């Protein structure tokens, strides 16, 4: 379980009081990927307000899938009816046509009341019932809830006792759909026979993942899942195919782990490095960029931007400081990044605006809004980066082009700021209050 959010009034000197921590509701990370799996019918166990909010964002950003839950009010929660409610939702879920797995998503109030796993069925109507515990008070960020969910599914579904599929790699992490295809294309040239992209839409992928010869987490927060693979004897390849040097190192590490022909691996890695360097050379990019999302991938994005020629003085993320992030942190600090905030609050980001030069912000909606209020070009990290490739040389080109384009429209941000501040009136709300 992740560590506690550091929230104290006795902050280090010049550190702001962290009042508004920044993350989507952690549970959403789990729901998003659980609802996207074909044949998955989620049963949520929680109170009405939580259910409304999570259903809202899941229907908007996850999948167009009906979600069910028992009605849990004061009476049910205090009288130990949580298990009964979960069982009712499971029975209903099991009647959906084509259901193969029923993730039971247990949230804050259910976790507080208690939902013992042994009181739930392991199967219902042939579907696997899988408990996923993601109380926001204990998970802290939504990337980490993705890890909890993937680990829970693999634990139940992963076929790790049968014969291995040699030269098969699990690519672990929710990424832009074209990314795994690009990575697989390259890996096949090195002698990899198959890749399995997790978490995807196919239940069978979770089963097969247990037989893979190696797993490569593309994001640095798949801690529980990596540990599970290790417990199965599946080697975990560190790093990610991100940027010039990162990709080169990753391809070689993967080749080494799988026992591929080292000469062939080197040849493919060199070719890709040349392509990446060509991307870097193709444009001279300058400008100060803040990378301040809450997806847990911010340090890797910052690396790509730095390699592309931008300066990234400040990076912040919702995940905690962890050995898995350390290589990226060290690399960034060696390349001009002055501050990296983990488990960040809005106050960290706002303070950075005053401390470091910035031409463009990739941030949370809240912080992007604050930047726009100052006339600084800003985009919502999650929406913009989820809709573009990121890995390998193709990802570098796409990300660089996006930031270039945003910097190119910089004057518009100042023009709108100045228009809306022309009369310096007291703020009122939309309806005049």
């Amino acid at each position, binding site marked *: 379980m992740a560590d506690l959010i550091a929230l104290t009034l006795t902050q280090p000197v010049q550190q702001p009081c962290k*009042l508004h921590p920044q993350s989507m509701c952690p549970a959403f990370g789990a729901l998003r990927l659980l609802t996207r799996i074909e044949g998955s019918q989620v049963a949520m166990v929680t109170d009405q307000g939580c259910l409304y909010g999570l259903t809202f964002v899941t*229907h908007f950003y996850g999948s167009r899938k009906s*979600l069910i839950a028992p009605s849990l009010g004061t009476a049910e929660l205090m009288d130990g009816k949580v298990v009964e409610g979960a069982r009712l939702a499971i029975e209903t879920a099991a009647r959906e046509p084509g259901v193969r797995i029923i993730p039971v998503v247990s949230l804050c109030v259910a976790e507080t009341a208690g939902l013992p796993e042994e009181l739930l069925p392991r199967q219902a109507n042939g579907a696997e019932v899988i408990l996923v515990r993601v109380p926001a008070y204990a998970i*802290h960020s939504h990337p980490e809830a993705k890890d909890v969910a993937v680990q829970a599914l693999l634990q139940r579904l992963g076929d790790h006792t049968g014969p291995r599929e040699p030269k098969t790699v699990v690519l672990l992490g929710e990424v832009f759909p074209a990314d795994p295809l690009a990575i697989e294309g390259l890996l096949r040239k090195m002698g990899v026979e198959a890749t399995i992209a997790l978490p995807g839409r196919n239940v069978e992928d979770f089963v097969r993942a247990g037989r893979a010869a190696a797993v490569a987490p593309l994001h640095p927060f798949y801690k529980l899942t990596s540990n599970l693979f290790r417990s199965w004897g599946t080697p975990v390849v560190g790093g990610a195919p991100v940027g010039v040097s990162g990709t080169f190192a990753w391809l070689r590490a993967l080749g080494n782990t799988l026992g591929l022909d080292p000469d062939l691996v080197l040849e493919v890695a060199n070719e890709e490095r040349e392509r990446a360097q060509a991307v870097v050379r193709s444009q001279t990019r300058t400008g100060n960029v803040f990378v301040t999302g809450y997806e847990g991938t911010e340090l890797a994005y910052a690396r790509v931007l730095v390699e592309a020629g931008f300066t990234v003085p400040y990076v912040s993320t919702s995940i905690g400081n962890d050995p898995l992030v350390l290589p990226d942190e060290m690399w960034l600090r060696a390349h001009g990044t002055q501050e990296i905030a983990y488990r960040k609050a809005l106050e960290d980001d706002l303070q950075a605006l005053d401390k470091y030069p910035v031409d463009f912000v990739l941030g949370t909606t809240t912080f992007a809004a604050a930047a726009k209020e100052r006339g600084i070009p800003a985009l919502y990290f999650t929406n913009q980066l989820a809709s573009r490739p990121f890995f390998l040389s193709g990802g570098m080109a796409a990300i660089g082009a996006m930031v270039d384009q945003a910097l190119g429209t910089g004057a518009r941000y100042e023009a709108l700021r100045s228009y809306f501040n022309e009369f310096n009136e007291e703020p009122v709300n939309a309806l005049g209050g």
Partner: protein
Amino acid sequence: MQLLRDLAETSGYWAAVWTMCPLGDVHVVCDAPIGCFNLVGTAVPDYTDAIPHIENLTPSVITEKEVSGTGTAPAVERTILGLQAAGTLEGKRLIVMSTAESEMIGADHTDLVRRLEPDARFYYSNSLGEDEWTGRDRVLGWLWDEYGAPAAGDIAAQKGRVTIIGPTYGCFNSPSDLHEVQRLIRGAGGTPGLAYPYGATLADTARLAEGEIVVQLYQEFGQTLATKLGKPVVQAPFGMRATDAFVREIGRLLGTSQQAEAFIRRERKTTLQTLWDLWRGPQSDWYATTTVGIVAGRSYAEGLRDFLGGELGMPVQFAIGRPRRLDEADNSAIRAMLHERAPTMLFGSINEHIYLAESGGRGTHFIPAAFPGPIVRRAVGTPFMGYRGAVYVVQEIINALYDSLFNFLPIDNHAKPASPAAKPVVSSAPSLPWQADARVRLDQVLETMPFLPRISASRELQRAAETEADKYGLAEVTVEMVEAILPAARN
């Protein structure tokens, strides 16, 4: 125990944030884990109210430590001290509120809050017990008791002034509806007064007493406050006749009946003229075959039902309100209904939109009419209430029918750029006789479709079945051939 599917209504906690936070001189501390703060404060208001985030909301950030040991008092204290240190509370009144999780662990901060900020209050949102409707209703009454009534002693009702209760954040389409209701009040000879809470500040609360009468925008909430104010209450109207009655009632209560009558006469010749023109034109011929389904807030559901069904004669297949009455279909039943047979026009939330998508929903038009679901409704030109609302809703329906027609008219495949997905040209289908049971099956399928799409679907399905039969070398179209083409036809 009840099963919930795709919940349509949120809790008392959301109701409290949505009702208090539009008051710009309030700062709310929610005793909440990060998720309850994020969803209410940022993730959802981006898409319900089109605001980047709720700025005057701060969480206590409940973690394991608070749940399993200390309770949330230290976290609330730290948060208040932090806000004080940052200067955030200057010129603001602080309200600390409970959430589902803080209620689970029994946190009550009434005394703590008063000790730290003498003017501050603790509000128990009863998030585990109340839904958003009863929640909003109770918050409005509480705000009056705490901040309004004590200061309202010297405030006399002003001649012709009309207080409006509602909207809060999270009220579908409220800018347009409020705008239209304010216009109607002016037309009836009154002066629109405070629109509480969204058009007000906390300091304005006592000014609720300025109204000679009260207009309640939504029947779902506001009754408690209206009763406390002790003034005559009029409910905001939908449709032509109900709006006439609304304007007349305001005129009667304010003693401005002559103005009200003149306004009604003028509106009928101007704003409502559109409805008369459409009625006399070919458009209204479709009304009787345009089936309507409605799932929305109680005021919207009943208002649309009475106007579209009662006044214009559109067959209302169902009208289900929120809060749901026990005799109304729940979401599982609505889903089954829509899978079975969807109406031509479906007014609803994203839930109904999803059920429609699940079943293919061919030919049904979805018109957003309720939350949940992402939508921007900040322009004031899209009312559902009042005279302009009546015109806007019918205009939406007719334009949707035009769009249906456009989509079902044949397109010449030769004009399209070549693509592997292009459908084969079906005009060469052989003309084959139909067996009786095959014809019955085709009619059954067509019967489940909305009226306008049915016309061209009838042609398409016939051709497809005949082509299929021809492929198998049959002399007649059999029921098996109809079944064979149905899965493709549904997509």
